[in-house]
């Protein structure tokens, strides 16, 4: 996502207030704005019109890869690379390999999903700009970047004040 973009940010104290604000901002036709909150707010996705996360697709695909690679690993090593008679069992004793395959599936899926989150949220960041330290504790904010269509400081400031923002400040970069 954008880095080093300036813009305007409004701080709220109430969850429903910031929800309101988000809805309003959206209806005003802003698209690039974002809401910041100490915890996930129920209904904020619609409010900011954020699409459903695409991480599950990653999980599914990598999970499948894990499954297949588990199958290949067990099959190739025990039946192809060096088949050995172990306890009179078949070289490819599938039932005995299932646990391995399962674990690899989970491992691949879980780790790559996390990787996906890192990518999606551009993590990790060293020392990102902070609008207000309390935003991770008990305050909420709406941030509108200056490159957003119809960006107008005065208009926005007025709008947020009306929505009950305790503070509206210009942000050099966020």
């Amino acid at each position, binding site marked *: 996502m954008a880095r080093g973009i300036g813009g305007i940010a409004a701080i709220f104290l109430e969850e429903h207030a910031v929800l309101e604000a988000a809805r309003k901002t959206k209806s005003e036709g802003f698209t690039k704005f974002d809401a910041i909150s100490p915890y996930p707010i129920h209904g904020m996705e619609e409010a900011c019109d954020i699409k459903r996360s695409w991480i599950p697709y990653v999980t599914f695909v990598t999970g499948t890869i894990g499954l297949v690679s588990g199958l290949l690993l067990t099959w190739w090593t025990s039946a192809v690379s060096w088949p050995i008679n172990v306890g*009179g069992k*078949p070289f490819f004793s599938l039932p005995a390999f299932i646990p391995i395959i399962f674990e690899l599936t989970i491992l691949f899926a879980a780790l790559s999903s996390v990787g996906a989150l890192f990518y999606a949220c551009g993590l990790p960041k060293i020392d990102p700009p902070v609008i207000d330290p309390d935003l991770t504790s008990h305050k909420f904010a709406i941030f509108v970047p200056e490159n957003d269509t119809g960006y107008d400081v005065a208009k926005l400031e007025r709008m947020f004040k009306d929505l009950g923002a305790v503070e509206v400040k210009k942000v050099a970069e966020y």
Partner: protein
Amino acid sequence: MSDTHSHHDHDHDEQELAAKKAARPKIEHDNKFWLSLDQYQQNPEFKKLAETEFLSSPLKEEDDSANEGWARREFLKLMGASLAMATAGCIRRPVEKIIPYNKQPEEVVLGVPNFYTTTYFDGSEAIGVLVKTREGRPLKIEGNPSHPISQGGTTARAQASLLGLYDPDRLRAPKKNLFNEKRSNKDGIGISWDDMDKNISEQLKKGAVVVLTGALTSPATRSVVSEFGQAFGAEHVAWEPFTHEEIREGQKSCYGDDLVPGYRFDRAQMIVSLDADFLGAWLTPATFTKQFSKTRKDLGKMSRLVMFDSSYSLTGANADIRVRIKPSQQLDVAMGLAHEIVVNKGRSSYAGNSNAKSVLSAFAGTAKKLGIEEELFKRIADDLWENKGQSLVVAGGLQTLTADAVELQIAVNFLNSILENDGKTVEGRSGNSSLKSSNKELLALIKNMEQGKVKTLIIHRTNPMYALSSSAGFAEAIKKVEMVITTSERDDEVAQAAHYVAPDNHPMETWSDAEVTAGVFGLQQPTIRPMYDTRSFQLSLMTWAFLANKGPKRLLAYETFFDYLKNYWKEEIHPKQGRGQSFDDFWNQALQEGFVGESVNSSARSFRAEALNQVKKSKDKTGYELVLYPTIQLGDGSNNNIAWLHELPDPVTKVCWDNYVCVSLATSQKLKIKNGSVVQLTVNNKKIDLPVHIQPGLHDEVLAVAIGYGRTHVGRVGNGVGQNSYELASVSNGNLVYSGQETQVTVLNKTYKLAQTQEHHSMEGRQIVVEATLKDYEKKKEHIIHRHPIWSIWSGHAYNGNKWAMAVDLNSCTGCSACVVACQAENNIPVVGKKYVMQGREMHWIRIDRYYTGTPENPSAVFQPLMCQHCDNAPCETVCPVLATVHTDDGLNAMVYNRCVGTRYCSNNCPYKVRRFNWFNYVKKIEKPLHLALNPEVTVRMRGVMEKCTFCVQRIKEAKNEARIDSRPLKDGDIKTACQTACPAEAIVFGDMNDSESRVSKMFKHERSYALLEEWNAAPSVRYLAKIRNNGKESASSDPESKGGHS
């Protein structure tokens, strides 16, 4: 880098060697004669090894503790290839030096073993053996299959004698003891052979010399001793604990010949043994087991063994009918049987003999009196008569050395004569006349010593200071002797009292011969250059005579005993046995085969009726009676410093590392004692404290104690293990009494834990050892075994080519445990010691399980050798995470030590629990030069790896390669596992299951054969043949149907 390293280390080594060389005394070995050894002396790396390995005293281990682990491991592999270690520093590139021979000894092929025939003599039995050597290093003892008497059989002790050769506690040089005048204190110093010989020869000139030896079975040695006697007017007294004097006296008074007759169990259909433990530790067990087992293979004419047992002996355990008695009843039983036959049934030529009748009449109604089932007693008597001519009654051993030991022998001889066994199953002519040791003579000698009539006493291979009860007064008497010389190979009890210790060679280092039985002579040839500065007993006598310049020419003529021996054979043996061969051929053949001659046939001898009059009915005793018995492990205790034997559990009690007093269940309840509670035995004022072992099947008035323990000066292994029960023997009218003495028991408020390798004795009704009576078997045939329907969802792997398998005939196995020691010797199996045996960490790859069946009052025992079963569906393999144990395409369950990480899961999942884990780095504990006994063909395991029976895979490989090199197919019998070769009963058969003609596949098809835990479908490659008991009953004490062994 590494090179400079190596050089440095190398120089360092050189210095060490130089130092050692300097420290090493000059040796004159009497080994000029042995070609190969002779050449070894010229080849440097062997010298080098000799110095580094052979002479490093265990006391200065730290010399090279730096590269200990490496040095030893490398040694195994590299000495095998005759490569000397130069250094063993960095792991990545250990720079090693290869030092070739200077001249190639023609019979040495590096890494290919040579076998030498020789004879092992333990005081009673001379066994023909082969010694496997590699590059001049004896590694293993095998029976000599072509030997006419022992026929390839060995005993646990014979197998273990190898370790005695490398015993670190052997004396490395002659020794002199300085005594204070009261001889109460001494100070040992080293002395050179020359000085010692000078002093001794001076002393000998004073005369009044006595040579006290153990039984001398070697004719040449006997002749040296007698000629030495002529030289100094020396008297020769032979004594050792097992004199077999009672037998000889019995024979003398009954038939007039002073010898131990030859017993032929292979010809006997009905055997009655009165406390003669002929399968265990009496007389010649290897030979007897061989003979006995022959009569058990063909169930059509299977022999019957009846044992009247006052201890629970191995023979008792194998008996078809075992009757528990106490020593004072032995005579009653023998005469009772005679009475039954002669008087009650009026059978035999003596039926009309009034004198005999009157003697016998005193023993009427024995069975009732002794509380023996009368029916049974009658039947035994009848069986004896019905099998007359092929029945055999024997008695003997310490258990029978009661006050009336000789009467017992007379009674036994009488029985054998009336049953017309004499000349058939008892051979007067082919007996062993060389077992001449005598208690009486010893006691007489002691008198002379006390009266100062003995100036010089030379003691060889006998140990009255330990094995003779102190009441005989030897310890006091010996102080009255001016000079005592002993040839003990170690600083033992006798050496403590001797002025000079002239250490003898180990039998494997020296030449000798043996009279196995009348007419059969064995040769004993050295298989290694004497390791230390020692000298053979015979050469010592010859040297002393030579220095004193006395005695017959022959004695003085030769420089070495070998020359003497060879000449003796030329003059004495060759004429009789030569059969017209030239002496050289004769000699070479004797060396080749290890023996000459054959046992002579005997005919019936006439029984001197008057002998019977000596037999008096002694009054019945009540109260506890002592029984002293030898164990199969330690015998008389002379080889008490061999750890293998201490670790070997007693086949019946399963206890190791101790002796103890066996009491019956009832007695233990009466005395309120448990296993391990300590009691004090008092036998005419001699007291001894012993832990209790509750032994089912003992007579309630018997206290049985093993001899051979409690040595004080045998070495670090044997010292202080157990109690010396020889002390309990007592002197009565000029003879020694061991058993049957009245004994008081006081329960002490102490306990002492015994190390027992098997603590549960019942089969819990499971089908483990299948046992049936002969009658039962004839009726049910294969149905004595409960078979399980088995099916599998998967076909399994095919085994083309070989499929190795093993069959064990439980009907032949006597539990003698020779296989256990043989396996230990072959496979470098560590000894863990009492503490860890108690924690269940013994390492034996093959163990012998013993179960009791029947009532706890008088149970019968069954034995089951258990080794890795090499299952086709091996449970251990499936669970090993690193593929350290997998299956080979010839059906072996491979154990790959260097892949094993030691999860021990395999052991858990093994239903037979035959896998052993190296809990500690046992191999590090092996003390030089014991490591020379390690078999270079078998990997030495480090700590943290699992190990188990491999079916002697190294032997399989060896045989296969030999076959390949001679481009011939491998044939059945080419491969013999260590346990198989050791087994005197031929109970173990190994071979290829895919070869339908092989012995093993035939045994697999036998109707008595079954797989252990068959229903578990591990599909073992080992099968057992059911045990058959010929006790004339309908159903065995353990009937498979009656035990819920099905599922």
